[in-house]
């Protein structure tokens, strides 16, 4: 047994070595950079302790993007999970044409973020966007709304585009969770006279609670580190209304060429992700997990 164990590592090491190496080394490297002054325009890389972190915390634009990221995440992640659950129900049910719905539903998720952005610019464009057009036809507005150039409307627009790009993934995983529920549980609940809401609350919800937790954590991570849709849709504007932390990391590193600050901000962003994950896992009642494990 021990003799054969050696050959088994040959199967997994070609994956493990590059993945671990290229995950751990960059993290260690970023940590080192974040504690040193590393700017292209200045010579040398002296140790500066937490100076990079301090300079970030004194920068009001960083605080603005932190607020943007928090708001964006708190809106986008839960809505994505809820929409995903709703869509999963629609994919699970039986009706003619289901195969077509199932086939295209993944599309928003498969599209490159830049394309998602372009498509939604067309919807939200102030002059000839479809949304203004529809709202005018419906008589809801009589002047075009400046969706992409008014801070709050722009925030709304990028959140919609982000949710659109993310909901299929949540829907597919929810679908997997829903379809693994033993159907006799529903029969039993129906015999006990449970109504639709009770069946959802006491049969479905406990069975999918782990998936809900996993998805909420995942979607939170995605939202906190979101970058491409917002970048291509608004370029972080108007002003810095839609500038998220991930975009700031890019800006600090590649626009201001301050790698030390970029790395420090990356760590702060990772820290924010961890705080979110801890909060989510803490907020989910432990009993939900217990029912699921049985």
């Amino acid at each position: 047994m021990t003799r054969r164990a050696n050959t088994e590592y040959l199967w997994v090491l070609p994956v493990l070595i590059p993945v671990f190496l290229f995950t751990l080394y960059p993290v260690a490297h970023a940590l080192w950079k974040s504690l040193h002054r590393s700017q292209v325009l200045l010579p040398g890389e002296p140790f500066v302790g937490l100076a990079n972190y301090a300079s970030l915390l004194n920068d009001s634009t960083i605080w603005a993007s932190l607020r943007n990221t928090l708001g964006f995440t708190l809106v986008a992640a839960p809505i994505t999970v809820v929409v995903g659950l709703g869509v999963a129900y629609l994919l699970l049910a039986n009706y003619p044409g289901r195969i077509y719905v199932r086939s295209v539903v993944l599309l928003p998720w498969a599209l490159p973020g830049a394309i998602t952005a372009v498509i939604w610019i067309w919807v939200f464009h102030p002059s000839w966007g479809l949304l203004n057009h529809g709202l005018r036809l419906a008589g809801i507005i009589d002047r075009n709304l400046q969706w992409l150039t008014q801070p709050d409307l722009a925030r709304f627009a990028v959140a919609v585009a982000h949710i659109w790009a993310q909901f299929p993934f949540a829907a597919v995983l929810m679908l997997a969770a829903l379809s693994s529920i033993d159907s006799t549980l529903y029969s039993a609940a129906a015999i006990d006279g449970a109504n639709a809401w009770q069946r959802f609350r006491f049969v479905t919800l406990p069975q999918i609670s782990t998936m809900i937790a996993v998805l909420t954590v995942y979607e939170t991570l995605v939202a906190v580190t979101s970058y491409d849709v917002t970048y291509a849709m608004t370029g972080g504007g108007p002003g810095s209304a839609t500038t998220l932390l991930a975009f700031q990391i890019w800006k600090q590193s590649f626009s201001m060429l301050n790698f030390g600050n970029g790395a420090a901000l990356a760590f702060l962003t990772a820290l924010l992700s961890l705080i979110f994950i801890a909060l989510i896992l803490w907020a989910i009642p432990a009993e939900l997990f217990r029912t699921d494990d049985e």
Partner: protein
Amino acid sequence: MLGRSLLLFGAFLVFLFSASPVILSFIGSIVPDQAIFSYPPNWFGYGVTLDNYRYIFTGELPTVYQAEGANRSMISDAARQVPRALFNSMIVSGSVALINLLLGGPAAYAYARMRFRGRRATFIGLIMAPLVPSAALIVPYYLLVQQFGLLGTKLSMILIHSIMTLPFTTLILSVFFGRIPDELEDAALVDGCTPLQSFLRIFVPLVRPSLLATGLFAFMLSYSEFLFAHALGGSSDSRLLPVVMAALARNTDVSWGLLNASIFIAVVPSLLLVIVVWRFVVEGLLAGSVKG
């Protein structure tokens, strides 16, 4: 039945919500710009044309813009980069898919069918690796790639995208390999097959559709990745499609017809992939559970 019609209506909404932007971009790509901007909307009143596609692939100006006084600045050279970028993306994402199968396949098999020390711990580590925000990796990757002189090359993108996708493909494939009944493997071992032989002769043929689809899944992740492609991308020769699309999106001068044609060209591979991935990966993952 009220519930039934609500269900159908909901399904129709989801279909529209997912597909309509793509349908719209196709319409926008084959009608002249003045049709898109017409008010009240008269999208098909100005005829239908493939000029935008011809310009993107051959550089021949659309007839509308050859007219005197037409706004030539609406023609953007960025749109001309789309075919080249599509080609680059195909090479990179295709290689990533291949690497994923060649390395991820055996690893997934080992995790699903073999027992060895550290199996559980390394598997969990593998799944946790993608949780590190890519924004935190970008600077170290940039400097690493620069050090090896690979900045702006397809090779660097292939390597980075492979590392990014391998955890996912290993996870998915190990589900497929794990589902195959033990008896088949036992029979192979009794017949004197080595693990490699039973992997190649029994397991690979059995999961071939899932292998294909998982490869396409890796392709899809690589095809839509933007952060690394943007930060490490080089000259227009090696630029990937998402980078060019983002440039087009930020360019306010570009004609809407050209923009829509570019979108549609970029969407076609995704559309084809989605159908295959759904058919084999999702239905495959669902197949083990109770039928919906």
